[in-house]
């Protein structure tokens, strides 16, 4: 496209509608890989990196709104109130990647291994998308449809993501061959919700999209002594929780790991995540 890159969302949506062939690019950290390799030859790019209003986050009556253009470096620096999201952000690529890669890009790319996606799923986030026709709000599981498949229409852009504030500890954990520059073999996000007395558990890299583990969640919600943070969870109960979490995974064998290894990883990570969250809750109440 020879016209100048948009600097407002309205301009970006106009450009999206006028030039559906132009490939949207924010950080470029996913898009440029196949472009450099010659596997993807876009006729034009729609550069979203100058749309300042997409690169902000804010609290909005009981919810958090994170603009699609917010980088993982910024999330890691500024969203400390959400430890699982910060933990996930810090595992994205490398410092160079985190300075560019955005949460909107993670959503739009819709890799089953997208690092922020298990967190957004555990938080029960909604994805906000927009076009010149208007704005839509989609629950995360209605937005992510399959590997690299989303509900985004041809003229739409991801605008941001929102989730309600929740009380309670949580964590994100990811398994790979090293701490940086790793596509997750499996990842887990667990968020305790002490107000609703629920456990929210999401799994990454073990199914065509990120998935929740509702049976494991319900089992843990029943087993936790909500009124007595000091009472430990029996070890056997934590193990059963891990097994139920693993049962929610539908992994495949691929170059990064076998399906069996992924199931086992989920079992161990989910058990640990639950025990960590309960330990955090105990400490906070002491």
């Amino acid at each position: 496209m020879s016209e100048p890159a948009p600097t407002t969302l309205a301009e970006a949506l106009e450009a999206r509608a006028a030039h559906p062939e132009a490939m949207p690019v924010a950080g470029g950290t996913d898009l440029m890989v196949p472009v450099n390799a010659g596997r993807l030859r876009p006729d034009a790019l729609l550069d979203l990196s100058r749309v300042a209003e997409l690169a902000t986050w804010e609290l909005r009556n009981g919810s958090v709104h994170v603009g699609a253009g917010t980088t993982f470096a910024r999330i890691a620096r500024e969203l400390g109130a959400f430890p699982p999201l910060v933990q996930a952000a810090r595992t994205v690529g490398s410092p160079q990647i985190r300075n560019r890669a955005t949460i909107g890009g993670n959503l739009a790319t819709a890799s089953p291994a997208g690092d922020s996606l298990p967190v957004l799923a555990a938080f029960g986030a909604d994805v906000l998308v927009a076009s010149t026709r208007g704005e839509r709000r989609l629950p995360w599981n209605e937005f992510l449809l399959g590997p690299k498949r989303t509900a985004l229409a041809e003229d739409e852009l991801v605008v941001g993501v929102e989730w309600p504030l929740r009380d309670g500890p949580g964590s994100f954990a990811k398994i790979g061959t090293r701490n940086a520059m790793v596509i997750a073999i499996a990842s887990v996000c667990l968020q305790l919700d002490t107000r609703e007395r629920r456990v929210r558990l999401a799994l990454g890299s073990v199914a065509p999209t990120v998935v929740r583990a509702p049976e494991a969640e319900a089992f843990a919600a029943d087993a936790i002594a909500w009124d007595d943070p000091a009472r430990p969870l029996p070890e056997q109960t934590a193990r059963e929780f891990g097994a139920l979490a693993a049962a929610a995974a539908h992994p495949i064998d691929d170059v990064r790991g076998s399906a069996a290894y992924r199931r086992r990883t989920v079992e161990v990570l989910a058990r640990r995540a639950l025990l960590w969250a309960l330990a955090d809750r105990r400490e906070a109440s002491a």
Partner: protein
Amino acid sequence: MTPVTTMVNGLERTVDVPPATSLLTLLRDELDLTGSKNACEEGECGSCTVWLDGELVCACLVAAVQADGRSVRTIEDLGDGERLHPVQEAFLEAGAVQCGFCTPGLVVAVADLLDRDPHPSDETIREALAGNLCRCTGYSKILAAVHLAEEAVA
């Protein structure tokens, strides 16, 4: 072709590029700034690390058009002719350079780190350099070079 005007190492440069050309290609092939290396072209190795508006990025993952109107600083801007930057001196002195291919990216990343944190812990250094691969040194000499540079920069 799209015209891209970028401030590169303090000089305004205008180049016409095809739509999805990377900033790295613009720097190397159009401006002959070959200090930033082209190795993996997928952000894995960090050997093309440059500053874009003061932020550390892999030049291979930035579309050249995204650098239009912005400033880019490359390894070429660190030394001053014969005089090396303290981080470059430290790499030589510590023996942190073997084949040298990763060195420009690492020097930029270390300079960036010391700018933000003049006395980083080993853990901080490892995290800050996690995006720069070196297949020769085994990294311990690079860590030593960072500590040497830290004294020189301080």
